[in-house]
C-alpha cells in the first residue's frame, strides 16, 4: 500500500525540517517520493501538522502494582459508554489505554517499573494494549542477589552479568532503580533512607547500589541510562538529595525519573517550597543527566510506586482512605489513591515545581514529558499540559485559581517562556528516540517506521493534542478524527546485552537454595503471550 500525506506542515527536528511538504509511506516505512507512482491512499493535509508518533518514556501502564490498583479502586473507573472495539471503553483496561494513547498520537510507551518476578504478567498486560509498541524497564537495586554481590565485593562483570541475565529473562528494555536499598531497608524497619544510609544485613549504601547499576548499564552498552527514582521522594527539602544524586552520578549517564517529586525546598510557613529553579540549574550544568518531569495535575488519581517505603509513609494521606503495601521479593510497592487539589498549598507547589522544571531546563533533548502516569496525573491530562507549556496565558489563568502563598513559594509567575511545536516534537518524539537508541523512530526521514501523527491546529491546544486528525502505526491508518478505527497489536521492545552464561547456573542454584523454586518460573515464553512474535530487539550501542 502506497500512502501519500499531501501538503501538511512536517515538524521533524531530527532532520531539521519545519516546512510544508509531502510525506510518502509504503510497507510500514517512510519512503522517498516515488516518481510517477499513484498512491493507493492519499490524504490532503493542507493546514495540518505532521509529526512522528510520540514516545512516552515513563508511564505505569502494566504490571503487578498497576493491576492491584485497578482492583483496589473499582469505584474510580466505572465504564459509561458502549464499546465500538473490544473493551475500548472499559476504563483503565489495557485496551482503553492503547485506544487513548493512539488517539493522542502516541505510538510507543515505556512501562518503567517491572519487577523481574512479575515480568510475565507485565508482558501479558502489555500484549493486551492495542496499537502502540511498548517496553518494560526492569527494577533492580533492592534485590538480595545484587545486594549480596555488592556486600561480597564481587567484580563489576559479575554485576553486569547478573543485570544482563535478568533483563534478558524479563525481556526488558532497560534498568530502573527505585529508592536504591530503601525497600530492602524497610524490611528491617527503616522508616527513612538517605543516599548514604546503609542497608542493614548487607552494609551497602544507596549510593553504592546506584553507582554499581549505573556502571553495569554502561558496561552492557544498554542505550537507556540507568533510570533512577531517588531516595526521599515527595518529602519537603528533598532537593538536597536530588542535587547530591546528580553529583553521585560522577558525570556518567543517569536518567532521573519524575524530577518534580524531588524538587522541594523546606522554606516558608508550611515548611514546603519550590526548589525547582536550583534543581533545573544543576540539570542544565550536568550534560550527563537526562530527566523527565512527572507533572502534577489537579485530579483524583492513584499513586503506584515500587518505592514501598515512601508509599507506606504516604498511606496516611490516602484518598479514598485505603492502600495496599506490598513487601515483594525485592522492591514490592505501594498503591495509595490520592487527590491533588487546587486549594491545597502542597499540591499547588508541586504543580508549579513541575512547570518550573519544564520552563527552566534549557535543553529539550534532555527533558522528557511525563506525569509519571498515574502518579502525578493520568496520561489523559497530557493535552492540558501541552497547553500550559505553550501558553503563558493558560498558566496565568491556572495560577489564579491557586493559593497565593503557594504560588509565592515558586518562580513560575516570573517565567515567560512558551514552548513551540518544534520543542514539543523534540521532547515527545526526537529526544526519546535518541535516548532509547530507536534510530528509526521519532522522526519522519526516509526509512523511519511510519508511525505518524497528524494534528489539526486549534486555538484550543489541548483539543488539538487530545484528538489527532490521523494516526498511522507502522503505516496502518488506525485513528481518524480522534477515533480508533481498528486494532492492531504492536511489539514489546527489548535489549539483549551479551553476558557470561555462567551467571545462569549461579542464579539457578540461588533460586533453588533461597526460594526452593526454579528460576525458570520467571521466564516470559513468547508462546504464552497472545500474539505471534511479541518482541522486537533494540540494538545495544
Amino acid at each position: 500500500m502506497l500512502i501519500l500525506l499531501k501538503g501538511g506542515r512536517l515538524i521533524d527536528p531530527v532532520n531539521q525540517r519545519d516546512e510544508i511538504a509531502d510525506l510518502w509511506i509504503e510497507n510500514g516505512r517512510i519512503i522517498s517520493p516515488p516518481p510517477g507512482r499513484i498512491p493507493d491512499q492519499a490524504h490532503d493535509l493542507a493546514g495540518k501538522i505532521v509529526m512522528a508518533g510520540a514516545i512516552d518514556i515513563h508511564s505505569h501502564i502494566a504490571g503487578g502494582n498497576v493491576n492491584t490498583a485497578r482492583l483496589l479502586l473499582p469505584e474510580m473507573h466505572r465504564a459509561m459508554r458502549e464499546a465500538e472495539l473490544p473493551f475500548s471503553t472499559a476504563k483503565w483496561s489495557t485496551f482503553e489505554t492503547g485506544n487513548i494513547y493512539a488517539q493522542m498520537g502516541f505510538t510507543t510507551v515505556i512501562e518503567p517499573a517491572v519487577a523481574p518476578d512479575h515480568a510475565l504478567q507485565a508482558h501479558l498486560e502489555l500484549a493486551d494494549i492495542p496499537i502502540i509498541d511498548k517496553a518494560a524497564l526492569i527494577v533492580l537495586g533492592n534485590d538480595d542477589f545484587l545486594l549480596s554481590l555488592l556486600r561480597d565485593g564481587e567484580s563489576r562483570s559479575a554485576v553486569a552479568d547478573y543485570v544482563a541475565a535478568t533483563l534478558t529473562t524479563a525481556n526488558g528494555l532497560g534498568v530502573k532503580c527505585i529508592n536504591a536499598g530503601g525497600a530492602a531497608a524497610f524490611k528491617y524497619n527503616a522508616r527513612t533512607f538517605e543516599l548514604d544510609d546503609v542497608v542493614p544485613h548487607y552494609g551497602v549504601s544507596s549510593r553504592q547500589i546506584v553507582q554499581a547499576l549505573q556502571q553495569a548499564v554502561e558496561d552492557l552498552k544498554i542505550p537507556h541510562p540507568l533510570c533512577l527514582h531517588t531516595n526521599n521522594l515527595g518529602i519537603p527539602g528533598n532537593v538536597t538529595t536530588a542535587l547530591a544524586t546528580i553529583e553521585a552520578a560522577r558525570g556518567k549517564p543517569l536518567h532521573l525519573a519524575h524530577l518534580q517529586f524531588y524538587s522541594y525546598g523546606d522554606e516558608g510557613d508550611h515548611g514546603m517550597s519550590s526548589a525547582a529553579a536550583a534543581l533545573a540549574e544543576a540539570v542544565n550544568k550536568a550534560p550527563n543527566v537526562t530527566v523527565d518531569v512527572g507533572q502534577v495535575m489537579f485530579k483524583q488519581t492513584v499513586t503506584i510506586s515500587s518505592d514501598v517505603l515512601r508509599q507506606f509513609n504516604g498511606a496516611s494521606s490516602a484518598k479514598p482512605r485505603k492502600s495496599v503495601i506490598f513487601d515483594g521479593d525485592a522492591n514490592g510497592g505501594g498503591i495509595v489513591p490520592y487527590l491533588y487539589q487546587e486549594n491545597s498549598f502542597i499540591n499547588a507547589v508541586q504543580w508549579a515545581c513541575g512547570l518550573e522544571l519544564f520552563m527552566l531546563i534549557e535543553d529539550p533533548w534532555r527533558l522528557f514529558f511525563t506525569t509519571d502516569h498515574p502518579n502525578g496525573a493520568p496520561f489523559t491530562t497530557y493535552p492540558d499540559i501541552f497547553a500550559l507549556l505553550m501558553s503563558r496565558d493558560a498558566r496565568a489563568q491556572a495560577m489564579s485559581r491557586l493559593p497565593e502563598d503557594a504560588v509565592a513559594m515558586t518562580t513560575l509567575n516570573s517565567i515567560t517562556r512558551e514552548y513551540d511545536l518544534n520543542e514539543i516534537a523534540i521532547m515527545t518524539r526526537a529526544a526519546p528516540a535518541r535516548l532509547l537508541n530507536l534510530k528509526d523512530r521519532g522522526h519522519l526521514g526516509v526509512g523511519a517506521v511510519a508511525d505518524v501523527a497528524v494534528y489539526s491546529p486549534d486555538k484550543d491546544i489541548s483539543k488539538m493534542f487530545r484528538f489527532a486528525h490521523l494516526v498511522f502505526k507502522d503505516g496502518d491508518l488506525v485513528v481518524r478524527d480522534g477515533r480508533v478505527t481498528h486494532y492492531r497489536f504492536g511489539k514489546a521492545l527489548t535489549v539483549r546485552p551479551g553476558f557470561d552464561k555462567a551467571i545462569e547456573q549461579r542464579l539457578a542454584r540461588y533460586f533453588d537454595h533461597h526460594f526452593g523454586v526454579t528460576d525458570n518460573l520467571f521466564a516470559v515464553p513468547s508462546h504464552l503471550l497472545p500474539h505471534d512474535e511479541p518482541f522486537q530487539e533494540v540494538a545495544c550501542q
Partner: protein
Amino acid sequence: MVEARIDGKPAGIDAAVKRAAEILGAARFPVIAGLGTDVAGARASIALAERLRGAYDHLGSKRIFADLDVLRQAGQFLTTPNEARLHADVLLFVGRDLTRVWPKLLERLAPAEKPELALEPTARKIIWIDAGAVPAELNGLPLVTLDAPDLRSALALVRARVAGKPVAASGEETKKFDEIAKILNEAKFGAAIWGGETIDQLAIEMLYGLLADLNKTTRFSGFPVGAGDNSAGVVLTSGWMTGFPIRTGFGRGYPEHDPWRFDAIRLIESGETDAALWVSSYSQSTPQWEKDIPLVALVAPKTKFGREPQVVIEVGCPGVDHDGAEFARDTGSIIARAASNSSGAPLASAIIARIAEQIDGAV
C-alpha cells in the same frame, strides 16, 4: 482422541463446537462460569463474554471476595512466600484448613529453618490461631496455638492486647492473648498467613487492622492462601482486560462489576440467564446450581455430571497436558508452567476461540 459429547452421545469436536456456538449464540444473556482455566483460557472466556454481552464468574468466588472485598474497602499488607521464608522471625497462621487448601504451605515456608535474611537469625516463633490438628512439620518448634471458635473475636482480642487495651476475658484467656501479643509486638518482620473456610471477610478485616497496628512500630505483612483453580490468575486477567475482577457483565456493551448481580448461581437460579458455559480444566468440578438451563461444559476428563450438559468437550490441564500461564502460590505471581506430561488434549482457550469464531461467522 478428543472426547466430546452432544446430548450425552459421543460426537466429533467440530460438531460439538458448532452446537456450543449455537447454544451460546442464541442466548439472551449467557454466563461463563467455573473459569477454572489458565490466563489464556480466562482471556478467551472474558472476550467471549464481551462478544455475547454476557457475564462471567469463577467457582472460587466466595473465597476470592472474602479477601478482595477487604482489600478494596480497607486495604492490605501483602508479602510473598519467599519473603516470609527468608525474613520472617514470626509466622502467624490463621485458619484451621490452610494446609488443606495449600498442602505445600509448610514445605514452602520451611518454618524449622532460621530466616536467612534476618539480622540475627534465630528459631522462628510460630502462632496458629484456630489451628485444628497441628501439622506434624511443626512438632518440636516454638509454637503457640489458640483455639478460636469465633475467629473475628479472637483476632479482635489479640489486636486489643497488641495495642495494650483492656479486654473482657478471663485471667487465663488474657494471659494467652498477652503471650501472643508479646510475640507479635517483638517480631522484627512477621508474616501472617490466612485463608480457608473458617475465616470470613470481617475476620480478615480485623487481621488487616492488626497488621496496620503492628506496622506502626515494627514490620509485619502477610498473604492469603486464596482459592484454587487459578482463581487469582483469572482475577488478575480480568483486572487488566476490563478494569474489574470476576462477576462482571457486559449487558450494556461495557463492563459492569457487581458481586451480587453477576453471581453465576444467582443469575441462573433467578432466570436472568438462559445459557451457561462451564469451564473447569484443573479439576472435575461441576456447576453448583440446580436449575436446568442449556449448558456447554469444557471440563477435565472423566468429570461426572448430575445432569448431562447439552455439550461436553474434554480439555487438557494447564501445566500438565500443555504449557500455561497461571498464578502460582509458590511465588505469589503469574508464572509460566511447562507441561509436565504433554498430551494432545485441547486447550480450553483454543476451544473457546473456536466457539467464538463460529458465533462470529453466524452473525
